[in-house]
C-alpha cells in the first residue's frame, strides 16, 4: 500500500481539479491520430510540434515535427513511424498551392538517439488554381489489402484520395487523384467491419468559441467511394452524418483520429476549437468511439456520479454482500390492489444509508451481484481521483458506496472486496472505459502483488450473482457493465 498516495488522497479528496478535458497543457489544433511509441503517446498538430503523454491522460508539449504546415497525421508501419503533413502555399492571404509530404522516423521520442526524420518527400500537390488545396492529409493502411491511402484537401475544392507505397511512403507510380468529397476539411479515413469511412470536418474553424466545426462521416464498401451518409447522400454532394458536435463545454470538434485500445474498446481523438473551462483555448479531445449499426458516434466522457453498476450479463447490480434489510412499510391496497382506492396516495421514504449501515460489518466487506432495488448497499458513487493519473482518455476513479468511503478494491487472488476507507492505493483505483457497444469496461489500476499497471483483468460476472476479475473479452456480456442513475 502506498502511504504517500494514501495521505495525499485523503487530503485532496474534496479538492476539485480540472478533470474534464485532457489535463496538463493539451493545447493543439488538428491533432494527428494518436500513436504509441515506447510506452508514450504522441500527437502532432498544425504549425509543427505536438503533444506527448506518459499515460494518455496528462498531455504536454514536446513532440517534434519539422516542416510546419497544416494538419498532420501519423501511424506506425512495421517498426517505423510515418508522419504526413501539408505545407501551405504561404502566399499573400494564404495561397492554395499546397503540398503533401511524408517522412519517416525510427522513434517519435525526441530524446532518443534514433530520433531523426528522413527527408520529406512530396506525394501530392495543388497548383493554387485547381479545385483542391493539398493540405490536411489523413492516412489509412488498409488491413484487408496492405495498401496505403491518403485523403487530403479542404473546402477549397475537393477532398482527394491517393495511394502511397507503404514501404517508402512515396506515391504509387501512375496513381491518379480521385475526388471523393466536397464541403469538408481535416479528413481521415478508417476501415472497420467491411466498411471504409471518410470522416470530414464540417463548419468553420479558428473563430474561438464561435467556431462551428463538427465531424461528419460517410461510408463505402470500397476505399474509392462513393462515401454515402445515412440518408443516402454522397459526401461528394456535401453529405455526412454527425459523429461529434459541440457540447459538454467544448465547441468545434475537428480532425478525427481513431485509436483501438482493445477489441471493443476504441477512442477517437480530435481537437475542440474552444474549451470553455480552459480560457476558450483549442485543446485535445479524447472521447469513447461507439459504433451503432456500423456508424461511428462519439460517446460521452464518463464523468462519474452515483449509479447502479449493472451487469450486462443478467441485469443484476453490483452490491455489498450484506444482509438484505427489509423496509418496514405497510402494504396498502389489500390483496391485488382491490382495497379502498379513495385514499389519496403519498410518497414514501426509500431506504437510507443510516437505516442499515450499523448492521454492516466494520472491516472489509465482499461484493456480489443481486437484483437492484436501489438500496444503499447497491448504490455506488464514482469520482475521478486527480492525483492518480490516468490512461488513454480518462482519469482513474474511486468507486465507493454512496455516502461512505467504503471503496471497491481488487484483491491479490483476482477477486473483489470493499475496504472500509478509500486509501488511494492502486487496487482501489479504477479505469472505466466505454466499449463500442455503449457498455462499460471497469478494471483496477493494479492487482496487489502484480508488477506494474493492470491492463488485463476487468470486473467480470463469472455467474449471475458472483463478480470476479477476469480477462477482458468483448464477446461476452460477462465483461460488460452499465452505469444507471435510477
Amino acid at each position, binding site marked *: 500500500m502506498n502511504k504517500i498516495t494514501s495521505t495525499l488522497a485523503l487530503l485532496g479528496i474534496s479538492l476539485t481539479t480540472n478533470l474534464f478535458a485532457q489535463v496538463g497543457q493539451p493545447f493543439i489544433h488538428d491533432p494527428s491520430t494518436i500513436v504509441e511509441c515506447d510506452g508514450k503517446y504522441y500527437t502532432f498538430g498544425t504549425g509543427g510540434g505536438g503533444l506527448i503523454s506518459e499515460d494518455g491522460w496528462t498531455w504536454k508539449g514536446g513532440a517534434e515535427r519539422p516542416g510546419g504546415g497544416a494538419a498532420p497525421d501519423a501511424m506506425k508501419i512495421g517498426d517505423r513511424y510515418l508522419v504526413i503533413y501539408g505545407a501551405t502555399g504561404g502566399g*499573400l492571404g494564404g495561397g492554395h498551392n499546397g503540398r503533401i509530404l511524408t517522412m519517416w522516423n525510427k522513434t517519435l521520442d525526441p530524446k532518443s538517439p534514433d530520433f531523426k526524420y528522413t527527408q520529406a518527400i512530396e506525394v501530392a500537390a495543388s497548383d493554387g488554381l485547381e479545385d483542391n488545396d493539398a493540405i490536411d492529409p489523413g492516412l489509412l493502411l488498409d488491413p484487408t489489402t496492405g495498401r496505403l491511402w491518403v485523403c487530403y484537401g479542404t473546402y477549397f475544392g475537393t477532398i482527394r484520395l491517393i495511394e502511397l507505397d507503404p514501404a517508402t511512403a512515396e506515391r504509387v507510380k501512375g496513381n491518379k487523384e480521385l475526388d471523393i468529397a466536397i464541403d469538408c476539411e481535416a479528413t481521415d479515413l478508417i476501415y472497420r467491419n467491411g466498411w471504409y469511412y471518410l470522416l470530414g470536418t464540417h463548419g468553420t474553424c479558428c*473563430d474561438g468559441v464561435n467556431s462551428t466545426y463538427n465531424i461528419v462521416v460517410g461510408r463505402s464498401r470500397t476505399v474509392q467511394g462513393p462515401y454515402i451518409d445515412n440518408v443516402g447522400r454522397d459526401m461528394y454532394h456535401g453529405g455526412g452524418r454527425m459523429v461529434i458536435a459541440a457540447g459538454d463545454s467544448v465547441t468545434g470538434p475537428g480532425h478525427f483520429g481513431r485509436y483501438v485500445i482493445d477489441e471493443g474498446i476504441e477512442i477517437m481523438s480530435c481537437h475542440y476549437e474552444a474549451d470553455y473551462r480552459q480560457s476558450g483555448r483549442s485543446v485535445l479531445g479524447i472521447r469513447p468511439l461507439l459504433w451503432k449499426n456500423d456508424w461511428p458516434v462519439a460517446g460521452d466522457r464518463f464523468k462519474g456520479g452515483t449509479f447502479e453498476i449493472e451487469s450486462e450479463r443478467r441485469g443484476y447490480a453490483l452490491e455489498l454482500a450484506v444482509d438484505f434489510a427489509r423496509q418496514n412499510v405497510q402494504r396498502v391496497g389489500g390483496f391485488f390492489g382491490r382495497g379502498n382506492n379513495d385514499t389519496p396516495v403519498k410518497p414514501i421514504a426509500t431506504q437510507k444509508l443510516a437505516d442499515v449501515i450499523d448492521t454492516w460489518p466494520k472491516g472489509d466487506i465482499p461484493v456480489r451481484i443481486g437484483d437492484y432495488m436501489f438500496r444503499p448497499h447497491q448504490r455506488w458513487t464514482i469520482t475521478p481521483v486527480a492525483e492518480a493519473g490516468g490512461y488513454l482518455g480518462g482519469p482513474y476513479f474511486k468507486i465507493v458506496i454512496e455516502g461512505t468511503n467504503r471503496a471497491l478494491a481488487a484483491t491479490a487472488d483476482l477477486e473483489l472486496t470493499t475496504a472500509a476507507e478509500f486509501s488511494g492505493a492502486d487496487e482501489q483505483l479504477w479505469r472505466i472505459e466505454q466499449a463500442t457497444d455503449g457498455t462499460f469496461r471497469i478494471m483496477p489500476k493494479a492487482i496487489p502483488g502484480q508488477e506494474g499497471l493492470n491492463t488485463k483483468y476487468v470486473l467480470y460476472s463469472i455467474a449471475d450473482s458472483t463478480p470476479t476479475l477476469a480477462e477482458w473479452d468483448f464477446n461476452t456480456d460477462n465483461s460488460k457493465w452499465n452505469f444507471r442513475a435510477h
Partner: protein
Amino acid sequence: MLSVPLTTAAQNPIISGQFTADPTARVFNNKVYLYPSHDILPPEGTRQDWFSMEDYHVFSSEDLVNWQDHGVIVTQNKVPWVRPNSYSMWAPDCVYRNGKYYFYFPSAPAKGGGFGVGVAIADNPEGPFIPEPEPIKGINGIDPCVLQASDGNAYIFWGAGRCAKLKENMKELADDNPKEIVKWGNREMEMVGVNCLKGLPNRQAEGPFAFEYNGNYYLTYPYVRENTEVLAYAMSKNPMGPYEYKGIIMAEHANGCWTNHHSIVNYKGQWYLFYHHNAYSPKDDKRRSAQIEKLYFNEDGTIQEVKPTLRGVGINQANSRIDVDRYSSASEGVELAYLDTANTFRGWEVKLPKKGSYITYNDVDFTGANARTYVTANVKADKNTSIVIRENNKNGKVIARLNLKVEPEGGNNGGMMMRRRSYVGQWHAVTTTISHVPKGVTNLYIACEGEHPASIDWMQFKTPPTYFTSATAAPAKPDAGGFIRRWTILEPIDKPNRSNTVFTDSYLREHFNMEYFPNQFTIVPEDGQRVKVGKQRLTWHKLDSERFNVKLFRFADGLQKQIYGVLFWNVTVINCPEEIKDVRLAVGSNSASMWWLNGEEVLLLSGDRRMVKDDAVSPRITLKKGINILRGAVINGPGMSDFCVRFINENEKPVTEFEIK
C-alpha cells in the same frame, strides 16, 4: 497476382522503383511484354559486388509509356532444378507457340556446376508459369533466346552464340542437331549445336538475341570490344549460320557500365532496341535498368547505330507531369543531378547554369490545351531568375515565361508580415498561364532567360475543367437528379465581407432586399444584358453549368471578376406543361442565399453555409402551368461560392417534368 500500373512518362529508364536488366521485349496480343531479369541489392551473406537476381517480373504496355507490373512469374525457390539461394536468375526470354507461352531462363542448378536453362509454361503471357522439373538437356550456359524461323523450326541461342534446333515440344533439343567436341583447357566436351560466332568478333560474347527480318537472320550480341561491352550484330541467310559480322548497334556506355544486354522488337511498324544501363545505380553497375530507343535499318538490311538517350521513346501528354531532366538535347554546361542520392528512383533535376542555357524536350502532346491552359513547374534557384518555354527552338513562339521570385519580398520591419516568404534554394511550384497554345504533338525548348541559374524537376501543362457553356436556344431539362443547370447569372456585385459570420437572418433580409439595380425582383434578363450597380457595370450571362452545382466562384474567376466578398443574382425561367402542386424548392448554397418563386420569397439559407445537397427546402409550393420565374441571390464571404437547386416532391424525389427556357 499483383498488378500495379506504372507511369514512367515515356523516358529512360522506362521503369522506376525496381531494377530491370537484360530486357527481352516480345509482342503478344498487340501489347509489348517485357521480360527483364530483376537485379536486387545482394542479401546479407551473399557476394556484395556481384549480380543478384532471385526472381522474374513481367511488365506490359500498349504505348511503351505506361508499363504495368504483373508481378513475380518465376522465383528461384519454386523451380525444382534451381539451387534456391543461388540468386542467379539471369537473362530470360519468352515466346509463343502452339497456344502456349514458353519462358526460358538460366540459373544455377541445385546439382552440378555452371548454368542450366529451364522452361516454364503458361497459357497467358502474364502467367501463371509452371516450371518444368528439369533444365533442357544439352544446354550448359546462360542467356537463352528462341528464334521461330520462317522455316517452321524454333532455334534456341545461348551463351557465347551457340545455336541448336528445338523439338516441336519446345522443351528439348532436336535429335538431329550437329554435335562438336570442344576443348576447354585439357578437357574435352561434346556440345550440341553450332557456335554461330566462331571466328567473328566475340570476346566475352554473351546475351545472343536472334531475329528474322526481310529474308535475313540477325544474330545480335554484346561483346567486349575494348574494355566493356558493346552491342554488335551479324547477319546470315540461315538461322544456324554461317553469320557475317556487320558492326556495332550500340557503343560502350560512356559511364563505364560494364554490361549491356538487349532485345529488338517491331511494334506497330516501328523497330525498337531495348537495352540496359545503370542509370539508377551510378556507383554499382550490377544494378541495371531497361531503356528503349528507336532502331532503323538501312536499305541493304544493315542496322544503323543507336545512341542512348535520356528522352527514350513515346509521347508525353502535356497535362501530365513531364520530367524534363530526361531531355532530348542540352546546351553545353547543363547539369544533371539526382534529386535524392539515397533514393535514386526519385529521379533527377536539371540545372540550367547560365543565361541562354537550354534543353529541348521532344514529343509533347498538347491535344486538349486551350487559352486557359497554364503551366506549373517545380523549380529551384538561389536568386531571382526566369525560364522561358518556347515551341521547337530558340526562335519558336513563347509558350510561357516562368518567373522564379525566390528572394523574400516586403521585409518584416515593425512586426509586419513579409509579403512573400523566401524560396531561396528550395523546390517550389511556379504557375503561370500560357501565352501560346501549341497544336498536337510538338517539341519544347526550355531556356534560362534570367541572370542566374535555375533548376527544374518537372513541368505540367494543365487545362482547367470547363465549368460553364453558353446556353443554347433549345430549352434545357433538369438533370437526372432534378438539378436546374441553366441560369442567367449577373457578374458579382462587390459586397465586401471578410467572413461568413455576418450572414445573420436580419443582415440577409436587409441586404437581399435592398435595391442594387432597377426591376431587381421582376427582371428576366437576356444574355449580355447590362445593368449598373453603384459604380459597377455588370453583365448577365446565360449559361449551362456542366455540374449539378453551379460554381459561382468559377463563373467570377473565369471572367476575372471579384471572387470573394460578393453577391450573385441568378434567374432561371421554368416552363411547366401542367401545374405541379406540393413541391418544395431544395437548395444548398455557399454561403447564404435567398430564393423567390414568381416574386414570392420561398426560402432563406442563413448563416455560415456550405453547399450541401438538399440542405434546406421551402414550404410546399405550386409550380403553375406555363412560365415560372425562379430567382436567387447568393452572398459570399471568403469561400468558393456555389449552389445547387432542384424541386422535390412529397416523396423527396426530384421533379423533372418541366423545361428550362
